[in-house]
């Protein structure tokens, strides 16, 4: 598969991620491919409309986002899910206020991906284009095998979504974290105390303020790229950045502690893409 352009959509609400560094990294990984850093996709879309139309656009987007919300882990989000006014109002507040960092809901990753995809102009949606959208929202996918949602770090597709909160939440923490939290719940501790107890056992886990998130995010961009180039985002080698980590310690090993970035096979995948494009660097920052 030929890849001519990669668009990376930033998430300014997550201040610990340096998107300029991510841009440079992808340029290095894919020389010859045009790499573009774009603002947050929803805001970019809204800003393309005249002032008089924006209110309606925000309302429509807010409703679509509310429809993607996972309301129970045990049942899939139905098509055209009914929403209540307060849910739409919550999404509207988030869309209007860039400083609003309140989040924590889970959204159906496929519905969200389809929504994002519909916002990207057709001229930028060609098969050789890859769009990677960062969000601080949690995303999840429905698993038919155990009939429940699972939080995800990344959804590879058109477009791909990388969930920064998912990186800190989806791969499991050490068992002690959950045992401590359950114990605190059993004692009826206040939420503040439960968090405090759990934090003491969190160990070497990532959190949203973690400066290592930038480095980790590079690996998830690479997974989206690999998926587009080969149809497979993941690698079975636990020291390759394409390893599909299910635990925080696996994630840290693959993304931060490994001596080499990629296994031989996947390094060759990226090298082949570079050769296809002639190794000429091009980049933009929109």
């Amino acid at each position, binding site marked *: 598969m030929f890849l001519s352009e990669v668009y990376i959509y930033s998430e300014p609400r997550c201040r610990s991620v340096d998107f300029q560094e991510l841009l440079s990294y992808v340029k290095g990984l894919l020389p010859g491919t045009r790499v573009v850093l774009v603002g947050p996709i929803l805001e970019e879309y809204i800003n393309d409309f005249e002032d008089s139309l924006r209110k309606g656009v925000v309302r429509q987007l807010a409703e679509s986002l509310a429809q993607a919300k996972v309301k*129970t882990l045990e049942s899939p989000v139905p098509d055209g899910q009914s929403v209540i006014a307060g849910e739409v109002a919550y999404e509207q507040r988030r869309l209007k206020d860039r400083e609003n960092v309140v989040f924590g*809901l889970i959204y159906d990753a496929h519905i969200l991906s389809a929504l994002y995809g519909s916002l990207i102009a057709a001229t930028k949606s060609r098969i050789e284009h890859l769009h990677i959208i960062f969000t601080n929202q949690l995303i999840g996918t429905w698993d038919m095998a155990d009939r429940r949602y699972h939080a995800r770090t990344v959804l590879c597709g058109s477009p791909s979504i990388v969930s920064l*909160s998912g990186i800190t939440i989806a791969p499991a923490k050490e068992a002690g974290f959950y045992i401590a939290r359950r114990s605190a719940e059993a004692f009826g501790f206040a*939420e503040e105390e439960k968090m*405090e107890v759990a934090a003491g056992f969190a160990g070497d886990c990532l959190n949203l303020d973690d400066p290592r998130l930038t480095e980790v995010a590079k690996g998830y961009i690479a997974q989206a790229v690999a998926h587009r180039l080969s149809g497979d985002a993941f690698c079975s080698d636990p020291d390759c950045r394409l390893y599909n980590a299910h635990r925080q310690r696996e994630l840290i090993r693959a993304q931060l502690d490994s001596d080499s970035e990629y296994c031989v096979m996947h390094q060759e995948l990226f090298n082949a893409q570079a050769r296809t494009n002639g190794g000429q660097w091009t980049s933009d920052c929109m």
Partner: protein
Amino acid sequence: MPLFHPIDEKDVTRAIVGSFMRQFEEYAESDVIIVGGGPSGLMAGKELASKGVKTLIVERNNYIGGGFWIGGYLMNKLTVRAPAQEVLDELGVPYEEAQEGLFVADGPHACSKLIAAACDAGVKFANMTIFEDVVLREGNRVAGVVINWTPITSLPREITCVDPVAIESKIVIDSTGHDACVLAKLEQRGLAKTVGFGAMWVERSEDLLVEHTGEFMPGLIVTGMAVSTAYGLPRMGPTFGGMLLSGKRGAEVALEKLAEMK
């Protein structure tokens, strides 16, 4: 010489009945009725009454304060995370900083101060009073509540066929905790749909709860744990900082709505 002034029993009875009836008659029409006298309801009531809003809190128990008297495992210490300690400052509740951003206070001290602050601000209470139903107006606007004495619910039906009474208000606030009694009644009638407890990031639930506090349907504002039920936020243990800030947010929304009605 006796210590106390001589008073007949009938005078005591008349004083009680007269005072109660005057207040009951006056508050049969309020600006805001808050159902539930826990921390979020008390906080909302205090904020509203201090702005001159005629506010009545309906509480099914004899005591006011809900779960605010006591913390986890029957230990009477409460914790709040920053910035909720600012509310403790406002109330004059002493506290210690357990560590950066985490504060601990005595439950009885905090709860009694909050109740006193609500009373000082001018909130009136109908305790031992149970919510039974809502009063609805055009467009299904919530415009009051139907109430009865709490003991009625504990007696055999044959002797408790006592009709309730209705009291009216411009706005009703549901602060009844996870039960979300007002919302449940509306849902039972097919007039509202709540989400129930949802599938979200538990550690973010307190922020989400405050963020979702607001008008649920015309005339009805939801605060506190009832917000979790309304919007499918995760069920969580007592989060007193969240309750206090949710109450404050609920009062802000109520003030906006009251201003729009003028």
